[in-house]
């Protein structure tokens, strides 16, 4: 079963990489792009076959290692059920 953990800086935490990407997009002529935020996607292959338990496990992994909850939030999506 596959769990996808998306980690993003919390709202209000300065994201200079997102800002730089936004400026580069403007430089390329893409108009109408508001704030750009950059994050990480971590895909986990899990032996677990129960979606609820897989989600719980992935959330625990995110809290303990994958995200730094001082500055980052995360979401977990489970598929392959």
């Amino acid at each position, binding site marked *: 079963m596959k769990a996808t953990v998306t980690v993003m800086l919390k709202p209000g*935490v300065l994201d*200079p990489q997102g800002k730089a990407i936004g400026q580069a997009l403007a430089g390329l002529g893409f108009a109408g792009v508001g704030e750009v935020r950059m994050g990480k996607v971590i895909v986990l292959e899990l032996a677990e076959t129960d979606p609820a338990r897989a989600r719980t496990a992935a959330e625990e992994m995110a809290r303990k290692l994958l995200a*730094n909850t001082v500055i980052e939030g995360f979401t977990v999506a489970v598929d392959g059920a």
Partner: protein
Amino acid sequence: MKAGIVLFPGINRERDMAIALERAAGHAPRMIWHTETELAGLDLIVLPGGFSYGDYLRCGAMAAQAPVMGAVRAHAARGGYVLGVCNGFQILTEAGLLPGALLRNAGLRFISADCHLRVERADTMFAARYQRGAVFRAPMAHGDGNYFADAATLDRLEHEGLVGFRYATATGEVTPAANRNGSARSIAGIYSPNLRVLGLMPHPEDLVDPLLGGVDGAPLFEALAAA
């Protein structure tokens, strides 16, 4: 005091730190590999600068989970001294031994330049050889040194007097221009509530010899050696 320096894969400032400690103390510190778990007999554990585990995931995130960190946590819980410089500071925040986090520099660029640090309090073991309000020069070499914590945590640090050092001008003024990495409230270094764990972003260990252009960092290591 007996000091040990923890070596994680990817760390590269451990020799600078060893030179600074040995120069002040007259004897070499113990080098500790990241898989070691027995740190008895040490008074001070230093987490030096570098790029532990290639800065994978987040700076210091992998090192914070290394086997040695259980012993470092136990040492800190016993009231032992811990100094984390640069990547070492990042590791201490990732391990939860100090609050907050070090974000990407506000200007996005890696900063390799000297800065000036203002000593916010001198009544600690680390800063005892400086005067409160004194300014000293220290080299910076980091891409992720932008100290961040939520407003409540920053207020608590200020209220409890746990801000050890701030980025300042050569004359000791805390200005936005002197705060080149964009750190919250110009914070360069913070203490734990018992003042025995210090995380510091710049490198005092790299300014302890006149041949390198100054000895501004020497008082910190002399204080450690004398304690």
